């Protein structure tokens, strides 16, 4: 049986993309290899580590666990879509200021999970932050500075309300 690519239309970071994707390719693979957006990392490839986290129609998902064809008609936000006009997003600034980045491999996924959390709940409790980030593994920081960065980002966003949207 001949396996052919399938046309999809997907909005990525605000730009409409018309792509032809192979049915067995994950959204993560297409984001990296067809769109060249390398901020989204593939690490475990089985939904454990969260390095590939993107926001799909407003929800944080593991892009390695979503087939690219399933994103047809959807809107995807990756780490590259956060900075505007050369200015980092407040969540990114908070991660830098709080020293929440070491090797950086988990950081895009951490930032995207944080973005999804703060969009839904701008003033999360510590427990809610830990739950939202439970699916993002970091082998460097020990998490404390990441949690601090999320608190700091929430404070920044409440100052410039609406800016995380």
């Amino acid at each position: 049986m001949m396996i052919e690519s399938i046309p999809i239309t997907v909005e990525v970071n605000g730009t409409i993309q018309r792509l032809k994707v192979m049915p067995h390719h994950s959204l993560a693979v297409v984001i990296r290899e067809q769109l060249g957006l390398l901020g989204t990392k593939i690490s475990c490839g089985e939904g454990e580590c969260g390095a590939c986290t993107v926001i799909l129609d407003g929800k944080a998902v593991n892009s390695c666990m979503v087939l690219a064809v399933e994103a047809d008609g959807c809107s995807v936000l990756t780490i590259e879509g956060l900075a505007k006009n050369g200015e980092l997003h407040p969540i990114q600034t908070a991660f830098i200021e709080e020293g929440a980045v070491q090797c950086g491999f988990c950081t895009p996924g951490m930032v995207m999970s944080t973005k999804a959390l703060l969009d839904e709940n701008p003033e999360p409790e510590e427990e809610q932050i830990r739950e939202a980030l439970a699916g993002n593994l970091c082998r460097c920081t020990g998490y404390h500075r990441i949690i601090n960065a999320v608190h700091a980002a929430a404070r920044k966003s409440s100052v410039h309300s609406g800016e995380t949207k």
Partner: protein
Amino acid sequence: MKRFNYAEPKNLVELVALLHQYGASASILAGGTDLINHISHGKRSPKIVVSLRGVAELSNTVIEKSEGIEIGVLATLTTVAEHPLVRQRYTALAEAAVKVGSKQIRNRGTVVGNVCNASPAADTVTALLLFDPVLSVLAETGRRTVALSDFLLGPGQTSLAADELVESIFLPTPIEGTASTYRKLSRREGVDLATVGVATSVEWSGNIRIALGAVGPKAFRAVAAELQLKGNPRDMDNIESAIRLAQVAAEPISDLRASNEYRREMVGALLRQALQQALARCKGGECK
């Protein structure tokens, strides 16, 4: 990942026709959080993946019916865990759904998918067993209904034929004032499979239901323990007798997560906690 074809049927007629045509060489895609791993690990190698996302008649929500609720095949774990009626009347199910995987997994994975994957440790299955769940199963030849306890056959095994799909799960309304809870033991607090799962419900009349997960080839109701507690669920000695009956009913295996002796001990510890919590929620005949 091994290659496969992909189809997105637009309605049930197209869907069941595809399942009939491809049979065991088709895999049904709902949330994909189990299926994609199975394919990439070579556990399954479908010729075609049939997605449910475009099927007009299938639901991604919890629908309130006159005599209960219906959980659509595409309702995610997040949707079910956050649904007000589930939280209020089927509390154990909401508590179990929020304990599956991570936020990212719960945003994609579905309750029906968790059931069809038939893991003995599936959190939602253990909780669902408290509520007399009935599955609606569809094929080209027609619909059938099946109780969850009959649907599950063993680890990874269900009574679903190759050309069938589960379109929804119906849960009748529990008796007014029923309180329930789900307790999970895992090696770490988040994103881990259950080493032992215990779900318990209490009716104000004193009827108790107990379901145990990860301590047998499939989750099951501990009926002898339930009968022991019937009408006298608050007496400490009686609770200890019931716990011993639940431990006898459990047939845990030893694996990398725990030994069978440890699991059996923890059935006792978790059941004690679950009973206390459900009874506290049901204090004075007035459940929350």
